[in-house]
């Protein structure tokens, strides 16, 4: 069974201390997140540009997104961010059982998020609301509406891939937590995965209003 135990982690020889190692790893994570900001940033700029060029088209096209689904997913993702934060703080305090519980909850919420996305996507496929030349919907009058859906699929798709990767790394730290590798003295990986997961939440916090609400 799971027990609270002391963990001995040996830092690599090129660091002066475990704390030094932790700080270096964390800084690396922040720098990685900077590159992520810039990657998503490009898409947001494209969004802004085309929204400025074709405001009516965006308005018409965005009405074909399901606001309730998007809102549900926002709640799901924010809650998962909360459980992730709680899991990290539990690990830092050495409460392994609750850390595991919160990680599992986070994973379940991530699955819910993708489940909702699956329904949304299949609905869009069915209605022919697809990017570029694949756009076959005839309800939308605007001739350029496929552009909106190119952006929609590109942005939510890239975000969805991040969610998938997040689920992978959460499973990985869940396994390591179960093995008892983390405790108050060493929790670097779990904290870094936490940072990543919060970032994924952060992107969605912008995607939801921009795509679903104000189009």
């Amino acid at each position, binding site marked *: 069974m799971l027990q609270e135990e002391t963990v001995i982690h040996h830092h690599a020889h090129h660091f002066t201390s475990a704390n030094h190692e932790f700080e270096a790893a964390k800084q690396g994570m922040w720098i990685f997140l900077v590159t992520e900001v810039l990657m998503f940033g490009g898409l947001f700029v494209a969004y802004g540009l085309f929204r400025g060029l074709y405001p009516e088209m965006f308005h018409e096209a965005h009405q074909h997104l399901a606001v309730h689904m998007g809102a549900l997913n926002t709640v799901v993702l924010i809650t998962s961010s909360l459980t992730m934060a709680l899991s990290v*703080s539990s690990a830092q305090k050495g409460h392994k059982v609750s850390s595991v519980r919160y990680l599992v909850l986070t994973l379940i919420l991530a699955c819910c998020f993708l489940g909702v996305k699956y329904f949304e996507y299949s609905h869009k496929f069915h209605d022919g609301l697809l990017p570029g030349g694949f756009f076959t919907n005839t309800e939308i009058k605007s001739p350029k509406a496929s552009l909106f859906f190119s952006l929609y699929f590109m942005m939510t798709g890239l975000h969805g891939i991040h969610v998938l990767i997040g689920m992978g790394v959460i499973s990985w730290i869940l396994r390591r937590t179960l093995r008892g590798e983390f405790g108050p003295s060493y929790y670097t990986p779990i904290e870094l995965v936490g940072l990543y997961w919060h970032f994924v939440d952060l992107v969605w916090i912008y995607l939801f209003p921009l795509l679903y609400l104000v189009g």
Partner: protein
Amino acid sequence: MGSTSQKHHHILPTKTALTIGALLLVLTAITVWIAHIDLGPFNFVIATAVATLKASLVALYFMNLKYESSENRMIFITSFLFLAIFIVLTATDLFFRQEVSVHGTFIAEGSSQSKLKKPWVSTPELVAHGKEIYAIQCVACHGLEGKGNGPAAAALNPAPRNFEAVDGWKNGRKPTMVFKTLKEGLPPSSMASYATLPADDRWALTHYVLSLHPQVEVDSPADFARVGIDPNQESVQEKEDPKISIELAMSQLAHAESGMERGAHLYHSRFEQVQEGPFIGKYLYQKHCLECHGDHGKGGIKVSVLGVYPVAFVATHPLNQQSPSMNSQEVFNQAVIRGIPGNLMPGYGNLSSSELKGLYQYLKAENE
């Protein structure tokens, strides 16, 4: 090898975490609620502001940025600084670039004030004139008899309208409705706008198309009002700027340029010296038209109808006696100057009348 604990580290208290989580959910509810109230551009401002507030809470508390070393904080915040530069510089293009529009050059006559009296009243002359234009502009898709079975039709989805049927019309079969279709097209289908044709020509086309079925539908005064026509007045006065959209201008330019490049290449390899006089028609033909109309205007070249998915092709007809536009310089000029919308053939409004004459004579001589 020591193993000091990570003790300088701030641990997020459970209570704070729950408070932030609750706050985020409340803010989500607020954005969804506000989005349902129409505040014009403020909807966008508020939505972005609330999202930024939420993002800051996530970053400060969940991501612990509040207690993070100032170095890491600076690293992360700098990324947003760069993003801001990216956004602002791109936005200047959007806000300060002047309206790009091309005046005139591709369209021979800018205004489309009608010269005929009451062109919305069908006359045999108008129908005959419509038939002439139809043979050039519309047969590729709608077919010779208007059955919607022209050579390009097979690949078009939705299929071109069958004018011999009464059902399935989207705008409708009343004259003003067909006129509207010709002015605006039927986006997103391949039925393009023919607003570049003068209003009189569009009325002529309308009457011809409607003459293909005996059942006549008559416009009510309300129908006329909808297209902005007072049927008691003598003529139509369409307020139209003599300019074309950026996209059209760019596609026209791209067409013209690629044609010119290929033409220039041909010219240099084969007709080193000839540039003027009787050869002008041949030279211009090689330069602009050869790629689509084939050697000596023999036709048979497949031209893709852009903007249609899946891609469709139309094979060009020979430019000989049978071709409706090869019987008079006038009709020929109209076809070449205006081009054929639907992305089939670019318009060559920049050709002078002597150049057009040269082209016509060259084609006539070649296809005697």
